């Protein structure tokens, strides 16, 4: 790569041709202030905070957009530069409501921190006090326009990272506003509530309903982990304070999602209103009673000892770690249980991991079959949105029912029109077939026609379904003749039809986190951790092993999955 020799603040630096001044300075450890700039977004140069003086140039230039050239001499904190930055800050502060004392982001606000950096102790310009709307029409986060500095990070995130193009600029001059679609309330817009804009907003304009005012960066802890919402397995950061989950952010360094999350992963865990089971419970004379761990575990061991192994079924959720699943399978296989299976069956054509999510950012045609990527595996759907809207890739849907991605689709075909879909894929350069659990009937034809021409990506149901398959847990549960059942559901929802299959069982043990239909049917309830309290690994749909790190301590009275299984194994071995 060609090199350029430049001087920044008197320091000789070797930069790469094509780098911006900002990139070259950052690489050399020279701090140029920025505001509209964000490392995950394309530089835009709107805020003018990164202005620098380049010798020989008539005007100051924005370091985030100006490329280095050999021999360039740059000053980043000269008198001219500092005075220009201060006046930019003064203008930004003069427009809307930038009173810090009642703003939820005070302490973490990038505008505030720049005002501190440049020692602003008063404002130069009178303010207009134009009333600004607060848009609270979305369930999970709120937009307070009066805190907005129009830096357009949210617009760029919506476009570049999510491919959704919901956000844009409306109005001119003093009337400029961030708008959704053609100026509708956010809640009525095409917004998919992925919250990427929330994560990049530098001021208090975008507000998380759950974490606002509950602690600034220096009060909180951050733990990197893996999202347990689906088998994409996005990298996340759990932000906690005093053992409370405040919010979830996307991990910019995670290969799978590069910071982007969906509504299910980012917000839904915070909005979970299920009641936690906090002590072991046992049914006595038809009534659920609180018991000690000793009593509960003894009752489970006694119950299973009285039963023939062939009448015992053991079912585990694919929302627990591979390590737990391995211990679970080991325990019940040793007992020769009739069925040892998962709560979410995986169709046989999805049993082997195939393809990589990276393909989605390279494809020029997406052939989606048996999956609705606006509902499940949404971050894969977001990659498809990016492809369609940012790169001009085509989306072709195959399936009978309604698909929420239909708006983006180039064509939508029924099963009996599959030949037309195949023809489109054959014309493409880098087609990817994305198949989900409902793809069974279409897949053989697609494989036959496109085996050599397309890449295939399978999206398995169940967050750690691959971890379950790896230890031999399939979905084949045989209910006939089952007298006893052990259901490790943890924080997973248990399907009602599956519960109905356990109707004939006389003795049901539930290892769960929340009250619900399973607890209502159980004879013994063993309270266990939720996903944010677990450490271990998940295997995602691509077969990638990913790490979960516990961000929360379990409540008193609740034991970890493996501790419970171990205690049970000890008792059953006696």
């Amino acid at each position, binding site marked *: 790569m060609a090199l350029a020799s430049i001087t920044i603040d008197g320091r000789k630096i070797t930069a790469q041709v094509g780098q911006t001044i900002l990139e070259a300075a950052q690489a050399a450890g020279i701090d140029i202030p920025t505001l509209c700039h964000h490392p995950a977004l394309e530089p835009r140069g709107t805020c003018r905070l990164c202005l620098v003086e380049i010798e020989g140039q008539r005007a100051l230039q924005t370091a985030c957009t100006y490329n280095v050239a050999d021999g360039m001499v740059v000053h980043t904190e000269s008198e001219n530069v500092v005075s220009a930055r201060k006046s930019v800050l003064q203008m930004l502060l003069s427009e809307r409501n930038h*009173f*810090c*004392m*009642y703003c939820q982001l*005070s*302490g973490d606000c990038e505008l*505030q921190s720049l*005002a*501190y950096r440049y*020692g602003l*102790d*008063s*404002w130069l310009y*009178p*303010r207009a*006090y134009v*009333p600004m709307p607060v848009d609270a029409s979305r369930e999970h986060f709120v937009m307070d326009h009066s805190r907005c500095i129009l830096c357009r990070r949210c617009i760029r995130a919506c476009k570049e990272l999510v491919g959704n193009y919901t956000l844009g600029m409306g109005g001119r001059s003093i009337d400029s506003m961030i708008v959704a679609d053609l100026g509708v309330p956010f809640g009525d817009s095409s917004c998919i509530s992925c919250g990427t804009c929330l994560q990049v907003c530098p001021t208090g304009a975008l507000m998380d309903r759950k974490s606002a005012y509950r602690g600034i960066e220096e009060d909180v802890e951050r733990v990197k982990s893996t999202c347990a919402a689906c088998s994409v397995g996005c990298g996340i950061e759990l932000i906690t304070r005093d053992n409370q989950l405040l919010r979830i952010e996307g991990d910019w360094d995670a290969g799978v999602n590069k910071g982007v999350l969906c509504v299910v992963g980012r917000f839904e865990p915070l909005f979970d209103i299920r009641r936690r089971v906090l002590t072991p419970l046992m049914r006595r004379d038809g009534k659920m009673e609180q018991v000690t761990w000793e009593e509960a575990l003894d009752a489970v061991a006694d119950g299973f000892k009285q039963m023939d192994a062939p009448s015992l079924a053991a079912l585990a959720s694919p929302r627990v770690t591979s390590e737990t699943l391995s211990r679970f399978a080991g325990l019940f296989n040793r007992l020769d249980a009739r069925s040892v299976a998962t709560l979410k069956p995986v169709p046989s054509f999805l049993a082997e991991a195939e393809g990589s999510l990276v393909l989605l950012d390279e494809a020029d045609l997406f052939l989606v079959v048996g999956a609705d990527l606006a509902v499940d595996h949404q971050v894969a759907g977001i990659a498809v949105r990016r492809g369609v809207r940012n790169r001009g890739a085509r989306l072709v849907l195959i399936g009978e029912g309604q698909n929420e991605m239909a708006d983006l689709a180039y064509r939508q075909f029924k099963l009996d029109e599959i030949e037309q879909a195949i023809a489109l894929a054959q014309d493409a350069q880098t087609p990817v077939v994305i198949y989900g659990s409902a793809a069974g009937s279409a897949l053989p034809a697609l494989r036959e026609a496109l085996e050599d021409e397309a890449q295939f990506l399978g999206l398995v149901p169940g967050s750690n379904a691959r971890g379950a398959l790896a230890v031999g847990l399939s979905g084949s549960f045989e209910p006939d003749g089952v007298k006893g059942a052990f259901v490790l559901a943890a924080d997973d929802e248990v399907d009602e039809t599956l519960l109905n299959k356990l109707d004939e069982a006389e003795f049901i043990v539930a290892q769960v986190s929340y009250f619900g239909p399973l607890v209502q049917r159980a004879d013994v309830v063993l309270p266990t951790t939720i996903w944010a309290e677990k450490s271990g690994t998940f295997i995602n749909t691509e077969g990638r092993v990913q790490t979960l790190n516990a961000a929360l301590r379990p409540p008193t009275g609740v034991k970890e999955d493996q501790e419970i299984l171990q205690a049970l194994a000890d008792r059953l071995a006696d």
Partner: protein
Amino acid sequence: MAKKITIATDWLDTCSGCHMSLLDIDERIVELIKHVEITSSPITDLKHPPEEGVDIGILTGAVSNTHQLAVARQMRERCKLLISMGDCAVFGGICTMRNFFGKEDVLRRGYVETESTDEEGAVPRSDELGKLLDQVMAVNQVVKVDVHIPGCPPPADAIWYAVTELLAGRTPVLTGENLTYE
């Protein structure tokens, strides 16, 4: 003994928290009064700065009505150096929330519609009282200010720092923890 530096303080549209922060310099006030004389303040017997003037005037709170405007102007006339202290004095602060409404609406809400007001509630219109200005303003929008100490309230240390710098004959420049907007 050298003549003491004279300081007068007053409050305008304010919650009085800034004066509380001034008191939060705690026992350092004993050291301070060796060097300064506080001629008047809202929390002492004498309320108005003396006619012969003071060296330093300190104003807290925003300028909201004609009375506060007069107080601010009198302080400016009677002090050599004026300090604007706290977010309301410096920026307008939380008091400016009423700038989004007409002043008659604000008065009606405050004196007539308040939940604790009975049907006799009425806006006081006496000539003795200051009249609301159309807009709440920062002190530097009505008179020249020499030193700003923002903060809601400013930390006692920032106030101590500013005053001791002035006593040493230097212009205070707030940095680090002393410069805060909250």
